[in-house]
């Protein structure tokens, strides 16, 4: 491999001064990035990759992923609107009838759920800011002789998990309520869409919940705070997005019956 590089040396003259063994990647055992003239490179001293860059990259990935998620809800919405305007052939009369039943939503319960979700959006934002601050202070604590004291942190992350679970339980109760009112998945095209849209949202939210639980678990295992910060930060943005999606779904089901 080295000889391969040498054969190109007439055209390639950019060689880093710190050429490492080509087989070894960075990231293991305190290797520093080859930054010519770069700064001191304080990464918390554990040889971990550049967290700021990883955070930015993960946020970008999330943004791209949310586009895909959006397309899912866009297509469900298209189905909703199209099916709503479509007449149906009636097997008794042979004529076309409008068979879109208005679903009697348990609006009060859904409003409570909405409130719970918005509250969890606030707590997850507080959790995100809390861990951002912790990550910023983490390098200070590794300096010998520097102590910033042990501060007690409110468990915003745990609160968010509880609120998220409460929301999902509330949605489950709303489905039970719908069933009691006679609207099941296959009752009418409108009730099918109610279940599909709310379930798609609930599955998305449950995914976010699992990631938050993972962040809580890693906090207990004393993983580096920078690692957890990336997880919490990205999940918080995802969580906000899911709150917006829920308000959209709720408004669609409520106002476009």
């Amino acid at each position: 491999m080295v000889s391969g590089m040498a054969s190109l040396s007439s055209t390639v003259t950019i060689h880093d001064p710190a050429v490492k063994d080509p087989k070894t990647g960075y990231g293991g055992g305190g290797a520093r990035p080859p930054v010519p003239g770069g700064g001191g490179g304080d990464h918390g001293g554990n040889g971990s990759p550049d967290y700021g860059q990883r955070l930015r990259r993960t946020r970008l990935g999330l943004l791209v992923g949310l586009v895909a998620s959006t397309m899912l809800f866009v297509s469900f919405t298209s189905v909703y609107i199209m099916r709503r305007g479509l007449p149906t052939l009636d097997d008794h009369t042979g004529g076309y009838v409008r068979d879109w039943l208005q679903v009697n939503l348990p609006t009060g319960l859904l409003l409570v759920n909405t409130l719970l979700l918005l509250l969890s959006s606030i707590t997850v934002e507080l959790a995100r800011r809390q861990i951002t601050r912790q990550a910023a202070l983490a390098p200070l604590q590794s300096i010998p002789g520097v102590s910033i004291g042990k501060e007690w942190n409110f468990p915003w992350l745990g609160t968010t998990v509880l609120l998220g679970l409460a929301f999902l339980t509330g949605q489950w109760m709303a489905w039970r309520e719908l069933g009691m009112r006679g609207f099941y998945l296959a009752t009418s095209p409108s009730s099918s869409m109610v279940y599909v849209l709310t379930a798609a949202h609930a599955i998305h939210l449950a995914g976010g919940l699992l990631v938050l639980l993972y962040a809580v678990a890693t906090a207990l295992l004393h993983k580096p705070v920078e690692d957890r910060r990336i997880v919490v930060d990205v999940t918080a943005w995802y969580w906000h997005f899911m709150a917006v999606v829920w308000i959209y779904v709720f408004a669609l089901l409520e106002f476009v019956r």
Partner: protein
Amino acid sequence: MVAQDAHDPHGNDPHGHPIHAHAAPTSFIRKYIFSLDHKVIGLQYYFLALTAVFVGMFLSLLMRIHMVWPGAVLPIVGEIKPETYLSLLTMHGTIMVFFVLTTAPQGGFGNYFLPLQIGAPDMAFPVLNMLSFWTTFVAFVVILAAFFVTGGAPLHGWTGYAPLSALPSAGPGEQLGADLWITSIAIFCVASLMGALNFITTVLDLRAKGMTMMRMPLTVWSWFITAILGLLAFGVLLSAGILLLLDRNLGTSFYVPLVVVNGQIMGHKGGSPLLWQHLFWFFGHPEVYIAILPGMGVASQLISTFSRKPIFGYKAMVYALMGIGFLGFMVWGHHMFMSGMSPYSAFAFSIMTMAIGVPSAIKTFNWLGTIRGGRVRFQTPMLYAIGFVSLFVSGGLSGPFLAQPVLDIPLHDTAFVVGHFHLIMGVAAIFGMFAGTYYWFPKMFGRMMNETWGRVHFFITLAGTYAIFMPMHYLGMAAQPRRYSQFTELVYLQHLLPLNRLMTYAAIVTIAAQFIFVINLFWSMFKGPKASDNPWEATTLEWTTATPPPHDNFGGKTPVVYHGPYEYSVPGAPKDYVMQTDPSTVTTH
């Protein structure tokens, strides 16, 4: 954000990505099976597609034999019944479209060479990359399982039109087989979404210093645009598939109207088969471009390299790619002219479809303009690139025919359409893959493929595929229907039998010739002559590193880019090509 700045002393780090996030694995399983290395994952995709293409080809061979010798009793499969023919057709289409045309050009070559060509140590999210391959693998296993369940593989074609696809009682293959088919497609969608996310993030965030968007090789541009198309399209197919599964298994009526099967009223009411068609084709048309755009990228790359000339109109090529991608989302209705849509909608879709001719023509003329006056090296990769252009033109020209509702309505369910999309989406894309294989083989395996057998393979394949698919246009105009298992009993089609026989012979020869390729591939992997680091004297970044590239791609260094991707025959330069990493001050533009 103060916090972040405090923590990120390299806010303006001269290197975009100085870190390789994971060390080289040592165990067999982490190195070759659950590898995080984009190069290994690329090869995994490639060999998955290679397996799939042979399955798909075998199915097409059975169909062609059955068409011209309907009563023939074949070894292993026995006599082919009409419903078996429909199963073969469905599985051929699905396996080819999803597991070959989507998997190899993007998942295979894209995974292997996109990070190399932009100077990145790996994809943005290596774990996601691995998951995306293994999810694709699961999807492939699930779809193959459909052959072996009660009732066999589904009958509804790769487009899965409802209500046929939504009613388990509609036919023998529509029971568990159809459920497996939909499940496989849904899993594949998830895999493709993960892949698309990774590709887009990698291109946006992991480019080497100096690698501006407008210095990216056209291959990278094509993978990037393809990933965007995949990101927007696969979510729609996923939602359509979920609703189809609900219709089949939980009694909803999204796609199924009041329908009577064998005198029995099904429980459904009020669903719309057209809804499936809209959702499916909103995915389905971009899917065509997902298959062909990477081929365009490879053709651009190779034609420039082997003509020793800069690509003609680099910016125009980029904008044409974007234009094709954008218009690709506006034209799904041209698959549905027969559905009874409003003539006004049909007209709009027709106009948009014709408009795709403009960026396509820009690309074609730029390829020809690049070849013109070049010192062309007719090596096997270049032959395939030229073959790609030839097939793109031949297959593309029948597009404007089919884009017109008045012509599409008589031609719609005939062999004309089969000829059209096989040339442009099938064979052209496959030629792109062949071109990529012959071109990048030295980088992937460190050895050269056999040139003579490469040429033999090329000429047989080119002549063979034209002999199979060109006559389909005439058959279509003579009203030979597609998807019919036995047309020989129709009196008005009797006289087409000799031509159909010729096509079957051509198919047998062409399929046999593919074994030349496979033998060449595996033989060269172990016995081919050793390749140098840059055997084609190309300029892009993958040729600056060792052959095959080390685990972190550039051996601990981060390349710095000074030039555009196609600087060939630059006046005043010491060689007839200027590497992208060459810091010398040859002024080009």
